[in-house]
Structures are given as C-alpha cells and as structure tokens.
C-alpha cells in the first residue's frame, strides 16, 4: 500500500514486512490523514514474524506528534505480542530537532528494537 507524498504529508509505503515514512508531516487534518495509515498498519503488522519500520521525517507539527505516538504505541504492543519489530528513526546530521524527537519516542518503546540513525545530509 502506498500513500503518496503531498506538500504537507510524507510518503508512506506499507507491505506485510515493512513500513517506510519519508517527508514532512503537518496535514490540514491529522485524523483524516492518519486514520487510513494506522488502519493499513493494523492490517500489515503481524501477518509475518517480523516487521521493519524506516522513518525519516524532516518536520512534523505538534498535532502529528500524537499520530507518531499512537503509531509507536501500536508497534510496541505488537512487539509485546511476539512480532519481531525493528524501528529505524532516521534524522539528518545536525537536525537536532528530529534527533531529539527520535530520542523522545525511544523512551516509551520497550519491546521494539529501536535505532537512531544519522542519515545523509539534505538533498542527498
């Protein structure tokens, strides 16, 4: 499943084993955008033994933070149920805002393997 990138929403690609999120996230209406994404996640995670997540966001607003929190909470619950889940939070070098955001989410994750990954600089 694929949710195309728009000016205010990231690209989301979802399969039974992998989820990729790249871009900026400050939708006009967060629940309108996030509900189908979370529904797709629920359909995909658990159909196989393992699930990998790659997230690379350059900016998200405070309303989207709640979506990300719910997203990780769902993954962590699934990992608790036995699915092997790896989350890679990618941030650009020197983007301390996104680095801190990644650290903040990490603190509430207990059952997923969570990696903070410094990505290539802008426009790479």
């Amino acid at each position: 499943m694929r949710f195309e990138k728009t000016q205010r929403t990231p690209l989301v690609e979802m399969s039974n084993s992998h989820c990729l999120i790249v871009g900026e996230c400050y939708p006009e209406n967060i629940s309108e955008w996030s509900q189908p994404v979370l529904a797709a996640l629920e359909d995909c995670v658990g159909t196989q033994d393992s699930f990998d997540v790659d997230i690379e966001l350059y900016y998200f607003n405070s309303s989207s933070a709640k979506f990300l929190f719910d997203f990780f909470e769902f993954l962590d619950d699934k990992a608790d149920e036995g699915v092997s889940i790896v989350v890679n939070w990618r941030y650009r070098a020197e983007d301390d805002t996104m680095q801190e955001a990644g650290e903040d989410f990490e603190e509430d994750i207990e059952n997923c393997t969570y990696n903070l990954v410094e990505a290539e600089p802008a426009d790479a």
Partner: protein
Amino acid sequence: MTNLDTVGLHEFMQRRKTLFCYSGPLTEELLTTISNPVRHQLTENETPEAIANRVFGVFIEQAQNIIRYSSQKTRAAGDSVGTIAISYIDDTFLIEAVNQISSTQKSALEKTLLELSLKDQKDLRKLYRQRLKDGPPEDSKGAGLGFIEMARRVKRFEFDFNDSEDNPMFVYRGWVE
C-alpha cells in the same frame, strides 16, 4: 485614500526587517499555499537547515493557533482572522502572531504560558512527552502540544494581552537564533 499610507507600510515592513507577513482570514488551505514562500524566504539568508526548520515549526504552530482559536471570524465563511509575521533582525528570527480571543480563553492561556515561561528545556521536553501520553486537555482542538512545541523551539518568547476592547488581542512573539 491619503491616510492609507502605502509607501509608509512598505517602509515600515522594510525597517522592521519583516520578510513575511500575512494579515487577514487564515485557513488550512491558505496555510498550505503560504508555506512554500515562507520556506523559500527562510533559505534566502543561508540559514542553517536546523534553524530554518525551527522557525518554520514555530510559524506553523502560530498559524494553526490562529486558525483554531481566533475569536474574530469572517462573516460569510467563518474563517479565523489574525496576523502572522516573520522578521530577521541581527541574525535572529522573530516570529509573531496576533489574534483576537474571548475573555474566557484569556485566563487559561495566560496560566499556560506563564507556566511554560518558567520551565527550562529539560522540563519542557518532559512535559511534552507527558502531554503526548495523557492526550489533549479538554479545551484543546489540537493535541494541546502547540505552545510546548513552540517553547522548545524558541530561544525565548513573550506574550501579551491587549485589553483595550471587549475582546482581548493575544500577542505571541518567539525568537529563534
């Protein structure tokens, strides 16, 4: 039309080094449209990406606060009215927003912002995570995180209520460097 000082407006904006200003009805659709030129302006001064992102983040939260909470609405569409501006003075960005609020909103807002102004970055970070877990307070149309988010991104902020009329004007200024 002589009292509409057009050149004066231009010179005033130039003098206060305002690189972007919008005043009028603000909607999410309009915010989508103005986001691009704002981003563009922020890269004009060879601003490091991390700083530009911080300025943009404060700008978006301020704009969405106007959209959600301004008590001044257009007659036909009911769109929220406010003013938002970004200026660049002595290597520091100033992001400003003004909108009318109801007197009932004022006391809650004042309390929230006073509390935030006393917290250091570590406490703000802790509060942000706590609020994410707890969910929004009852009177919030967003996640209730907007002002905490802004406080985390700015070097300092000021707020004020201009009480000259029945409905107070809420003024918020944040500095990013």
